[in-house]
């Protein structure tokens, strides 16, 4: 399959305008190009309103672009969505509070029409992956925020998607839990061979996780820089104290700052992208 297409995600000249004909027109994205190769971990980073969540939603086909083309796994985003090619994780876990942890993980499998026994088996596997198998029969409200987010990740991975789309998944977590979750995510992606597009506000998070960091700027939202990070496959807690780590952080920070200093006088739009 991989031979048929080189890129998991291909974005070509994507433009997204909200309220085009109205006074509160927002140019959320203008002429954005992005390629994500298999096994890549690409972070989208930038200030609020730079369109990084919009870009993620275009890839997920939760939004249709105003102009430009996208493809996911060599298909239209619409077809990729229908065929369950990606899993998505949001800032909030979004678990269904009337379903047990196991049943939450089973949800996408149910919709895909899996048989009950296979479903249960896969759900337990996925919960083992996020170290929550003991909590399979708990209800979501019995779990902490970090645990709930791990369930959401297990749910997104249940259909074994080639692509994982994550919209500030650790944004609501405390720093300790956050670092732990980052390490867990890297371990899981390595184990499953998942390609990831990851939206974040945090520079250290982007640098720690990514093979590439894509720097974006606001109003209009566009890509201003791309930094290859490549801290290697054997990242661990020591990596966070590495000189190389700090060097990359500085690099990303300067890219963000250069963009801000060079920016045109900003138009006031007052619109943040979630």
């Amino acid at each position, binding site marked *: 399959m991989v031979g048929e297409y080189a890129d998991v995600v291909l974005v070509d000249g994507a433009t997204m305008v909200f309220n085009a004909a109205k006074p509160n027109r927002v140019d959320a994205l203008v002429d954005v190009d992005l390629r994500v190769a298999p096994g890549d971990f690409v972070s989208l980073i930038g200030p609020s309103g730079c369109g990084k969540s919009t870009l993620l939603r275009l890839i*997920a086909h*939760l939004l249709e672009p105003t102009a430009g083309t996208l493809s996911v796994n060599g298909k239209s985003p619409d077809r990729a*969505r*229908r065929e*369950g090619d*990606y899993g*998505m994780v*949001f800032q*909030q876990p*979004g678990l*269904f*509070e*009337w*379903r047990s942890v196991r049943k939450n993980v089973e*949800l*996408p499998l*149910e*919709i*895909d029409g899996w048989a009950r026994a296979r479903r249960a088996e896969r759900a337990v596997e996925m919960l083992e992956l996020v170290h929550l198998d003991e909590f399979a029969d708990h*209800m*979501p*409200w*019995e779990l902490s925020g970090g645990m709930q987010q791990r369930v959401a990740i297990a749910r997104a991975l249940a259909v074994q998607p080639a692509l994982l789309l994550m919209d500030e998944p650790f944004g609501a977590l405390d720093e300790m839990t956050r670092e732990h979750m980052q390490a867990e995510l890297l371990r899981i992606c390595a184990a499953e061979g998942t390609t990831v597009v990851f939206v974040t506000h945090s520079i250290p998070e982007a640098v720690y996780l990514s093979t590439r960091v894509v720097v974006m700027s606001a109003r209009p939202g566009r890509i201003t820089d791309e930094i290859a990070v490549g801290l290697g496959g054997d990242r661990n807690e020591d990596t966070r104290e590495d000189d190389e780590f700090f060097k990359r952080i500085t690099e990303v920070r300067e890219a963000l700052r250069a963009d801000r200093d060079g920016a045109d006088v900003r138009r006031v739009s007052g619109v943040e992208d979630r």
Partner: protein
Amino acid sequence: MTNRVASTLGVLWPPVLFGVLFLGAWEFIVWFWGIEQFLLPAPSAIWSALAEEIGAVWEATYVTGANALVGLLLGVALGVAMSFVMMRFRIFNDLATPLAVALNAIPIIVIVPVLNNMFSISTEVPRRLMVMLIVFFIVLVNVSKGLRQVQPLHVELMRSYAASPWTVMVKTRIPNAVPFLFTAVKIAAPAAVVTAFVAEYFGGRQNGIGYGITSSAATSNNDVTWAYVAGACALGVTFFTISVGLEKTTVRQAGPRRPGGATT
């Protein structure tokens, strides 16, 4: 299990103690000031009237209770059905929502005499219809809110799964609406009882608690009036307890954090 019993008793004893003290004070005041029976009978007098008239009170309670129950069940069924129709066809929602709000603001029970004329007054039909109407709007407002107010995140998630509208309904909207339904029933059950016996004040068959209360009060037979009131209280508490019990079963399943916002 014993823990549950102990905690239930722990919750129960203060109101029980209060009730006993209240009845004791009532008895004492009537005795101490020598209050006349036709003004306020003592609890002991009401008790003996209830013991004497228990057959009649029980029959009247049964009649009124059956009206309340039939009306409640019909109202819930109709309210749930209409909520789905409103969910499916937006136009019905736009039509029915202001109507439901308006009907909540007027004392709709005054139309009982009209119903009595439309349907024979020699049957229980007008009373049951009245109860059904009251319950219908309570259920409609709450359940349609439950079907609509799903978390935007859940909607986006279902879209990312390419779930059909039917799947979204079955897996997201209906489970979301279940606690709203039980909240509606909790509000509607006592309302059904009140409606059932107030409807009897407007004429019709002379067999329920409402009639028992008016006819005995008319002859200043106050002990018996209060015996019927006791029957009405028992009925209201029974309906409320059952509906709260039903609600508890869903709360236990879904956890303590439930969507609020029930309206009558």
